[in-house]
């Protein structure tokens, strides 16, 4: 986007939306939307509070564990599916079903099976993230250029060398793409889990602020949360692009 010959940075329109928000809030059109400036002031206050830090810690813990399991289980599963036709045909329908299934419906099951705590939230997070990671790792392995595999064989690569020096790297752009989408889904999963189980982390915090009509606090936490989610997603997008340079060239 160019304005008067000056290139405007990609996300710069958010400044305009921030101004719109501020004006909307100042006009006191809705009790539920305080001006941005008030939210930002509260934000610094909230970030320092013990309740916020506890929620952040709990959320980060559940999120990190959930993503860890999704990656550690998902990538090898996907690679094996890509290499083994029988396994692929047995698992693929389920992966596809769970990829698009309303996973929120499973949270009550997790609650009765694993209790109302951290364990259920971690599993929810994993469930949100894992399917796309599997699917992308599988796609990555399946699209590997045949001549690359034949090259490895013709130079007498052992199976392990072929895997660690060729397969993995050839599939890496897709795998990372899957991890990126998986992580974004995990962010949603961890919040949905907390909202439904709602005695830990940000779920509890939102409940507290909403019930006491602390709108500025509510929005402040929301802004922090959205900003963190966006940063994570952009960071992973950046990493993916650093590997993707050779993805197009295969």
């Amino acid at each position, binding site marked *: *986007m*160019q304005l008067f010959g000056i290139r*405007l940075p*990609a*996300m*710069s*329109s*958010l400044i*305009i*939306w921030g101004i719109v928000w501020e004006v909307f809030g100042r006009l006191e059109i*809705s009790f*539920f939307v305080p001006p941005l400036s008030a939210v930002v002031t509260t934000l610094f206050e909230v970030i320092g509070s013990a309740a916020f830090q506890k929620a952040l810690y709990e959320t980060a813990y559940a999120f990190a564990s959930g993503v860890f399991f999704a990656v550690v289980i998902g990538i090898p599963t996907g690679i094996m599916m890509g290499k083994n036709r*029988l396994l692929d*045909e*047995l*698992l693929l*329908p*389920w992966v596809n*079903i769970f*990829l*698009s*299934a*309303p*996973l*929120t*419906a*499973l*949270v*009550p*099951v997790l*609650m*009765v*099976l694993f209790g109302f705590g951290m364990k259920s939230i971690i599993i929810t997070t994993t469930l949100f993230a894992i399917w796309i990671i599997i699917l992308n790792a599988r796609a990555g392995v399946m699209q590997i250029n045949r001549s690359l595999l034949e090259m490895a064989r013709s130079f007498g690569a052992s199976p392990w060398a072929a895997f660690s020096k060729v397969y993995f790297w050839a599939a890496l752009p897709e795998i990372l793409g899957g991890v990126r989408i998986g992580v*974004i889904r995990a*962010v*949603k999963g*961890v*919040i*949905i889990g907390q*909202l*439904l189980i709602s005695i830990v982390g*940000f779920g509890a915090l*939102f*409940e507290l*602020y*909403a019930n006491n*009509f602390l709108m500025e606090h*509510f929005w402040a*936490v*929301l802004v922090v*949360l*959205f900003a963190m*989610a*966006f940063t*994570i*997603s*952009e960071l992973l997008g950046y990493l993916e692009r650093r590997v993707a340079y050779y993805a197009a060239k295969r």
Partner: protein
Amino acid sequence: MNRPLLLKLLSAAIVFGAWEIAGRIPVSYALPTFFEAMAALFRMAFDGSLWTAYAETLKPLAIGVLISAVLGITIGLWVGLSKWFDWLFSPIFIVMQAAPLAALIPLLVMMYGIGLTSKVFVVCIMAMPVIVLNTAGAVRNTPTSLTEMGRSFQASWWEVILKIVIPAASPVIFSGLRLGVSAGFIGAILSELKITPTGVGDIITYSRSIADYASMYAAIFSIIVLAVIFLNLLEKLEFYLFEGNARGYASD
């Protein structure tokens, strides 16, 4: 019988068999066997409670998905065609796409109460960003040679949009719709579990509270099946509307 179908059945048998065995051991007091859950499903289907529940659940879902699809594709086309709209609106949807919008639910409940409006809103905010972003991206990526071809045959702006840009973008638009619908399902169930227990969410919540776990699993099973069926129907619709999409693409 053909191999793919056979393997699908085998795969289903393995998973449901494992469920049955796990339920018989039992792994947990809260895990019924597969057949108990199916029996509960048939019971609810025959006494009609399942259908009443779905009539309730599908209302916000259908309204929300419809609004998201129409609005999402329109905004997406707009954003994809105009640099200015791209600059102005894309960031909002990019942030929405990355953000856990479920966190807005308590706010929506405060603003719009616990009724249908809130639930429709939940479905919309979950479903719309991906529809907008997919549509916009697909429109932006229309192969230049196709639009140049249209222009060289003197197609008007509208003809280029209707006969070239939209059909060329349709596979990606539809994949956005599928993702949007599946996010909409997540939103619909979430709002029934979180806002007020109605429909299928009510069956799930209620049967859990009276420890009728077979009914709870049956309801969950049914909603997953419904989502899968719905997404398949959407695929059928795509192939019906854009015949060539089913036939693969000439990439070079």
